[in-house]
């Protein structure tokens, strides 16, 4: 029915199956939209935030999706600026994942502010000394860049490409993509860093506060570095999941391996720097304000020292060591483990730097405050995941997201003429006896 829109040389499931597949994320998205409307119309009393937790699940979600969305700018940098052509196989997908992450972050921010209709004040009345201002500007500008990087892919849809203007526009955009990628890397460097600065500059909050270089606390550099390091792991993870779901090999091994290798070394460098930063903070910065390290990790039901060990060792050094060895990268299970751990690690880092910062009592006569999000907060946080699945599914079906898909999955002559009837893309839960993508 929609075969005219499907890229040439690839197989897609029948339309009814595709629509059925969209049912589940669609329902979740509707639930999220309902919660979002509740927040907009009834206000933030729909959340479990309070005056001790002005920042909570949403700000964590923002920081986390932007961190894992860092794969887009870093792959773009490697592909267009450093000319790593091996990434050609995965760059479109990295851009799409980045686009989903950044649009989600902007959406969550729009729900998170108390007066959404005044959101533009952050631009209009900008306080250039605020880390959040820098985040807002660079994030929005970088979202424009991601849109620009995503548009040529849309223009490559079989039908759109037939329009001469669009064909040429897409071609021209490809030609100067390096300029956009460089601008994107510049913007990403600053907004990833500023997000780190958000907690790092809080000199009234000893758990978050860090010294630094000029106006930038060390967390500024750690955040940029960790996003560049762990972002590609998220790109690999989503690619692997997509391959499982579609039961196809979509990206060439050398692209994944190259990205994994770079990521591994980046994580190793990051986690070493993070260790030094933690050491200095625990022995110099915090004690100068009257806090011992264990003050931050005791007398409360949740935040124990385990969280630091999990973040730095289990989700830091372990994935780094797996990914820097050729054996680890080539072993499918080890690769899966490493990318999952790296993604969990960077998300955990964002969690403690938002939530634990606020949980730690600073006044001596106050206590730890714990927080559990309301269902409205959870629904609006899951909303981007559902939206992401839908956008990936639609893009995968109608756009040549994976340039090597046809080459990696040659069509059998008999099925080639009728792509509509070739039912392949059956959405199946992972782990239902599928053929592993690597096999």
């Amino acid at each position, binding site marked *: 029915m929609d075969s005219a829109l499907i890229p040439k040389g690839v197989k897609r499931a029948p339309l009814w199956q595709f629509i059925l597949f969209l049912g589940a994320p669609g329902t979740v998205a509707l639930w999220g939209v309902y919660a979002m409307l509740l927040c907009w119309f009834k206000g933030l009393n729909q959340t479990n935030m309070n005056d001790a937790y002005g920042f909570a699940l949403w700000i964590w979600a923002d920081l986390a999706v932007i961190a894992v969305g860092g794969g887009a700018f870093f792959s773009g940098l490697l592909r267009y600026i450093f000319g790593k052509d091996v990434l050609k196989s995965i760059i479109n997908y990295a851009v799409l994942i980045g686009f989903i992450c950044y649009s989600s972050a902007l959406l969550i921010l729009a729900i998170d*502010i108390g007066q959404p209709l005044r959101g533009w004040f952050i631009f*209009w009345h*900008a306080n250039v000394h605020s880390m959040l201002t820098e985040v807002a500007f660079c994030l929005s500008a970088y979202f424009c860049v991601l849109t620009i990087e995503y548009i040529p892919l849309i223009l490559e849809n079989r039908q759109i490409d037939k329009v001469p203007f669009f064909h040429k526009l897409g071609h021209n955009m490809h030609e100067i993509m390096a300029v956009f990628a460089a601008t994107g890397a510049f913007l990403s460097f600053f907004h990833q860093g500023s997000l780190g600065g958000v907690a790092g500059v809080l000199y009234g909050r000893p758990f978050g506060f860090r010294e630094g270089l000029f106006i930038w606390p060390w967390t500024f550099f750690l955040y940029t570095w960790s996003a560049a390091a762990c972002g590609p792991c998220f790109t690999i993870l989503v690619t692997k999941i997509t391959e499982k779901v579609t039961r196809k090999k979509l990206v060439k091994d050398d692209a994944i391996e190259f990205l994994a290798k770079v990521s591994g070394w980046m994580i190793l460098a990051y986690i070493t720097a993070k260790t030094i930063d933690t050491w200095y903070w625990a022995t110099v910065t915090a004690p100068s304000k009257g*806090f011992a390290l264990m003050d931050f990790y005791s007398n409360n039901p949740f935040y124990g020292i385990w969280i630091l060990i999990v973040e730095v060792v289990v989700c830091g050094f372990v994935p780094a060591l797996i990914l820097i060895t050729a054996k680890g990268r080539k072993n499918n299970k080890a690769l899966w483990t490493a990318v999952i751990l790296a993604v969990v690690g960077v998300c955990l880092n964002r969690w403690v730097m938002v939530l634990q910062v606020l949980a730690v009592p600073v006044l001596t006569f106050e206590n730890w405050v714990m927080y559990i999000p309301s269902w409205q907060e959870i629904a609006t946080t899951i909303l981007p995941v559902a939206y992401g699945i839908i956008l990936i599914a639609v893009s995968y079906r109608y756009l040549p997201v994976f340039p090597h898909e046809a080459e990696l999955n040659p069509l059998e002559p008999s099925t080639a003429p009728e792509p509509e009837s070739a039912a392949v893309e059956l959405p199946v839960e992972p782990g239902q006896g599928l053929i592993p993508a690597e096999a």
Partner: protein
Amino acid sequence: MKKDKRYGMVIDLDKCTGCGSCMAACMAENNVPFREDESNKLLSITWMRVYKLTNGKPFPETDVCYLPRPCMHCGGQHEGHSPCVSVCPATATDYSLKTGIVSQIYTRCFGCRYCMASCPYHARYFNWWDPVWPDGMEKYLNPKVSPRMRGVVEKCSFCFHRYQLAKEKAYIQGRRELAEDEYQTSCTQACPAGAITFGDLNNHKHSVYKDKKNPNAFRLLERLGTNPKVYYISSRAWVRRAGDNYLRNEAKPAKAVQHG
């Protein structure tokens, strides 16, 4: 040229009985909204909040101290770099170099709550709901103070509207300077024990100028570098020590911190 004003407060904790008059006076003066159920204190807006401190010792050594906490109007390490003012993305909170008062512009605030995350004193509050006044109460609201809408942050302003009124009056009378008693916050006036004194910390004629130099004076969380303008006095060492964080093996502050 006259020195700029640095309005501040000195609260004598030995005098405070914890009666809460300051809190009530503040709520009435500043049209602070409240709800029917105020049992969750993490959702209550209290520009002035009285904390109860104990020394943690069993009877008969138990000792209690009540500590009223308004906004500290922090100056920061270089004047104006308050924890909250420096982070507000929309310039909705401002540090006045003329008065040293940290203001909040309600119509400018878009409710990101970064300032709340930055404030170690929990002196900033978010309007989770639109204010709803009991029937007829809107007639008793203070016409000099604008009520706040849902979705913005608010906090103690050192009754800035009273400063503006006093300045206007002085201007009409051809004066530039305010006498100490012309500008006083409502909590100061409401305290039956006279525990709160308010005035210009830079003006040697004002009692706060002298009181802040009391050997038993201290400020909350000074080690963070917030440079607050609210001083506390207590003759009890454990209360002074409760004003800041110290490492377990750290010697007690030899003497309450002095400020010039």
